[in-house]
């Protein structure tokens, strides 16, 4: 897969079909992957491709406005590209998507020295409910050379098991849980920085002309920030898991975002990143949207 990927990338740069390739290279610890931006053919050999390639490279699309971009993307990453297309943040002709077959990436929090197979380290939580090792929407589809048998990754149904567990708790228990989680938030905004869909020129959290909510890292401010970001992600979050991965204090952000993902699916039959022609969730409605909560 990597050989093919490098060949395609070289060709894209050579023909000037793209100005830059967003790819992975080996990090300084010798095992994990990190993003790299390749502008010249000679740098293509830096590229790597393995189960350490956790990052969602579409986060960097916003850093190259008006440029033509080639991007190495897993099926989950491509969904965020689709949302970016839905939201006019890039033109389809300006991105060449090299979709790669992926059977799971590591859980970065369990990273240890020395290269190991992903099954030994532990799968990233998002991979456990992944249904699509093969990307459906891409310009180039890069498949593995050998047919994979058992992936070693157990599919955990729809991925909402932990959400249901929380839903089953009492409101008081839930409040206690979230207050504990949010009290650790230091407002570093890493979750925002790593999210491909957080591209607002000036985030509401940073606006001072009208201060939407407190910037202090107290419970009130932290709760406001996290709730507002989750609401702004409604119908857009594709559950790439980067926010949770990037959070330095380990707040289970996916338990927030996936709850809304579950809700919008159940309430409106809406899935984020399904189709580039789809309208964003809150820019449309169905006359039959549920209204049992309205008096």
């Amino acid at each position, binding site marked *: 897969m990597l050989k093919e990927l490098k060949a395609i990338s070289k060709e894209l740069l050579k023909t000037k079909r793209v100005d830059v390739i967003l790819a992975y290279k080996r990090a300084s610890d010798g095992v994990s992957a990190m993003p790299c931006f390749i502008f010249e053919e000679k740098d293509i050999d830096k590229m790597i491709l393995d189960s350490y390639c956790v990052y969602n490279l579409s986060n960097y699309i916003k850093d190259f406005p008006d440029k033509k971009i080639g991007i190495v993307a897993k099926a989950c990453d491509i969904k965020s590209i689709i949302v970016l297309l839905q939201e006019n943040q890039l033109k389809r002709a300006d991105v060449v998507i090299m979709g790669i077959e992926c059977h799971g990436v590591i859980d970065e929090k369990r990273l240890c020295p020395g290269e190991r197979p992903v099954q030994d380290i532990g799968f990233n939580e998002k991979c456990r409910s992944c249904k699509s090792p093969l990307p459906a929407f891409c310009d180039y589809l890069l498949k593995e050379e050998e047919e994979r048998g058992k992936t070693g990754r157990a599919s955990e149904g729809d991925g909402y098991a932990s959400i249901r567990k929380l839903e089953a708790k009492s409101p008081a228990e839930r*409040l206690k849980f979230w207050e504990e989680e949010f009290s650790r938030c230091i407002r570093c905004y890493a979750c925002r920085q790593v999210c491909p869909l957080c591209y607002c020129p000036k985030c509401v959290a940073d606006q001072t002309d009208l201060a939407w909510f407190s910037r202090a890292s107290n419970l009130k401010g932290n709760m406001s920030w996290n709730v507002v970001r*989750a609401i702004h992600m409604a119908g857009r979050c594709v559950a790439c898991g980067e926010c949770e991965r990037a959070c330095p204090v380990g707040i289970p952000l996916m338990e927030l975002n996936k709850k809304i993902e579950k809700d919008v699916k159940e309430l409106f039959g809406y899935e984020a990143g399904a189709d580039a022609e789809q309208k964003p969730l809150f820019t449309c409605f169905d006359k039959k949207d549920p209204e049992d909560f309205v*008096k």
Partner: protein
Amino acid sequence: MTDFEPKIVAFLCNWCSYAGADLAGTSRMEYPSNVTIIRVPCSGRMNPIFVLKCLMNGSDGVLISGCHTGDCHYSEGNFYARRRFAVLKSFLGYLGIDPRRFQMSWVSASEGDKWAKLIHELVAEIKEAGPNKMGKE
């Protein structure tokens, strides 16, 4: 808490609900004074952050009231609001916030009696939910 008097804020759309509340007044219907009304042009104007802000600032309850679907003065605003606030309502409950604290209603300009009845119910429900401890650091 028998002497707990909740502080509830209601966002009313100008064309239907605000007029409905006016009608309740013109008809001299009596209802509890716990609800403070803020006028908006349409329920579609309502940003979830407003509701969150009220709750974080200590309001015990928040109500959004607009036109019945199909009757919106701006043709569709309430359909958008309905979708947006279905998500917020479920999410607030998931965070452990008492779901009674955020409610939505459709009150038309001719439903003065519905408005009065709604306030009675709302105040009773929020009284039961108790004071909002959020935002009291």
